């Protein structure tokens, strides 16, 4: 019998680091095909519609852009935080609070016009997301309360805040009883950048945000600090990098970007606050951050890949009747396979010949 053994690599493998995400996506297609065939769908067709139709059909490209934008913005922030070993998994909540803060500006300035309204909404969105992220940051640095649990609990609470506001104080007077806010005025809606499409200003902003983050993380002292604290906390302490300060920075960056994404989403596709606003972008962005290897450039690619599965999921729903939920399964499988492949970055597989293993025993 052939036996295998794991052997630690002297250096993490660069090839495996960037090869495993690609392998994870390919394996997801193969396993997804088998899984959906097994439960009675046309598996091959499902994979084709989910992963390839959004790319081959030019009409779908605009959808890809607007789905990828929030994922890239939030994913970039999360990749900075996870690099520093700060586990903010409440980006969905910070995204929601950012959108609510932006909505409050849009409602306060309702009926007004002026170029300053959108920038003000963007600032409010970022501040909202930062403020919400500062709760877990404060509790973590002051009282050592686990940030995973607090940031997640705050997400559930933020959803209730939406319901409260749009059923009560923000309820649309013209909404014939629907729980939703007013439609934003023209000045509070994101402009389309390509006439005749739904592509809004958020799409180029997402790419710019990721590029800036890439530059900051790889070329500046700030980025170096975040990476060192995450990779070697003890060395970082000797180097004079305060751990608490890093936690604050990580939380504020990831919360602020999630808030910005929330503002762009509410001012772009939604143009009003509705009960269906939370669409789990904040959770999907966790997969984006990991698939992008916590590198903002990788996050751009990963954001597009996840956007493909969203758009493709909708295609498959209409063409072959695949339930919408299938998308989530493909996304989770991708993350599972990626995590499983991580071992190949640090270890290599060596075959042990039967004689050698007999000798060792």
């Amino acid at each position, binding site marked *: 019998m052939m036996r295998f053994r794991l052997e630690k690599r002297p250096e993490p493998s660069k090839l495996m680091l960037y090869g495993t995400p690609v392998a994870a996506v390919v394996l997801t297609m193969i396993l997804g095909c088998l899984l959906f065939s097994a439960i009675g769908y046309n598996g091959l067709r499902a994979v084709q519609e989910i992963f390839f139709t959004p790319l081959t059909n030019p009409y779908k490209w605009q959808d890809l852009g607007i789905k990828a934008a929030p994922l890239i913005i939030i994913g970039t922030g999360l990749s900075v935080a996870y690099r520093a070993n700060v586990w903010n998994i409440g980006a969905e909540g910070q995204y929601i609070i950012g959108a609510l803060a932006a909505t409050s500006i849009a409602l306060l300035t309702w009926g007004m016009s002026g170029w300053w309204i959108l920038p003000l909404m963007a600032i409010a969105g970022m501040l909202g997301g930062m403020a919400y992220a500062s709760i877990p940051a404060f509790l973590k640095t002051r009282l050592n*309360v*686990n940030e995973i*649990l607090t940031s997640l*609990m*705050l997400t559930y609470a933020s959803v209730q805040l939406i319901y409260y506001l749009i059923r009560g104080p923000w309820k649309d007077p013209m909404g014939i009883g629907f729980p939703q806010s007013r439609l934003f005025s023209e000045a509070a809606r994101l402009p389309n950048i390509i006439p005749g499409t739904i592509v809004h200003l958020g799409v180029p902003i997402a790419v710019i945000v990721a590029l800036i983050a890439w530059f900051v993380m790889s070329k500046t002292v700030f980025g170096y600090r975040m990476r060192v604290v995450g990779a070697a906390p003890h060395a970082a302490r000797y180097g004079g990098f305060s751990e608490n300060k890093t936690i604050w920075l990580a939380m504020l960056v990831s919360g602020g970007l999630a808030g910005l994404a929330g503002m762009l989403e509410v001012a772009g596709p939604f143009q009003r606050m509705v009960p269906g606003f939370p669409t789990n972008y904040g959770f999907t962005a966790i997969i984006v951050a990991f698939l992008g290897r916590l590198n903002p450039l990788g996050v751009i690619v990963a954001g597009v890949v996840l956007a493909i599965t969203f758009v493709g999921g909708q295609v498959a729903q209409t063409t072959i009747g695949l339930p919408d939920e*299938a998308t989530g399964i493909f996304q989770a*499988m991708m*993350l599972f396979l990626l*995590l499983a492949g*991580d071992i190949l970055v640090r270890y290599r597989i060596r075959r042990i010949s039967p004689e050698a293993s007999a000798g060792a025993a």
Partner: protein
Amino acid sequence: MDLTIAILVTVVGASTPILIAALGELVVERSGVLNLGVEGMMLLGAIAGFVVQFHTGNHYLALLCGAAAGMAASLIFGFLTLSLSANQTATGLALTIFGTGFSALAGASYSARPVALMSPIFPDLATHPVLRVLFGYSFPAYFALFMVFAIWFFLKKTRAGLILRAVGENDLSAHSIGYSVIQVRYFAVMFGGAMAGVAGACFPLTLTPQWAEGMTAGRGWIAVALVVFASWRPFRLLGGAYLFGLVMTMELYAKAGGGPLSAIPSELWAALPYIATIAVLVLISLRRDASTNAPACLGKPFMPSN
């Protein structure tokens, strides 16, 4: 008096799934593994339990299949984190995302179809105006109480429990005196998965008699928080779970209307269990021995030098 009894009965019902899931996670964490996939395993248990109950009408078989579904899911987690040393935090999150998606897919054709709730195991006493506080529950409530004691006994008084704690406190020492760290952790993770599955199955079988997407509504995460709150001790878990049951029951009564409770917006009531979780985590962190009870190897992959 009647109202007090009614509230107490509801509290026990609402806290039972949280207690069961938290007990499972407690054992997992005592072995040194942090599985954040409880919510996902609960949802898988919920849909498995619902489907089996819907087609067979057998509640006990439904609970068992819920356990099996949770355990199967926990094996994915176990394989990735124990055999492949993958990051436990990320893998747990992936498991929750997977469980949410898979249960929604499997349950898509079952929404809004009613099933029968489990009936009390002492039908005669369950209608008694006072005694129903003690005897008015279906099987899971008693199972949860039994497991509190059983897990306490297992961890404190048995050899296997001692080994499990040793693996969680110092994996390298346990390894060097000949215990298989990975094997012990696999058993713990599978046990935690089965408990989460049963806990999830309790939702359609004992609380709301139907399947609804994401019906566990974050209770799995509250269970994870409760383990911290209880400083990894089974009996404290019991108190914590009933406390949360009380918060959730207050929400139900506030929504039903009447009394001073309804002056507070219903959305605030709905948010209260989550805010209470944060409050409880803060309170527990203020205690001096807060983290001293945490298993020393919690969340760290086992890597003997090779």
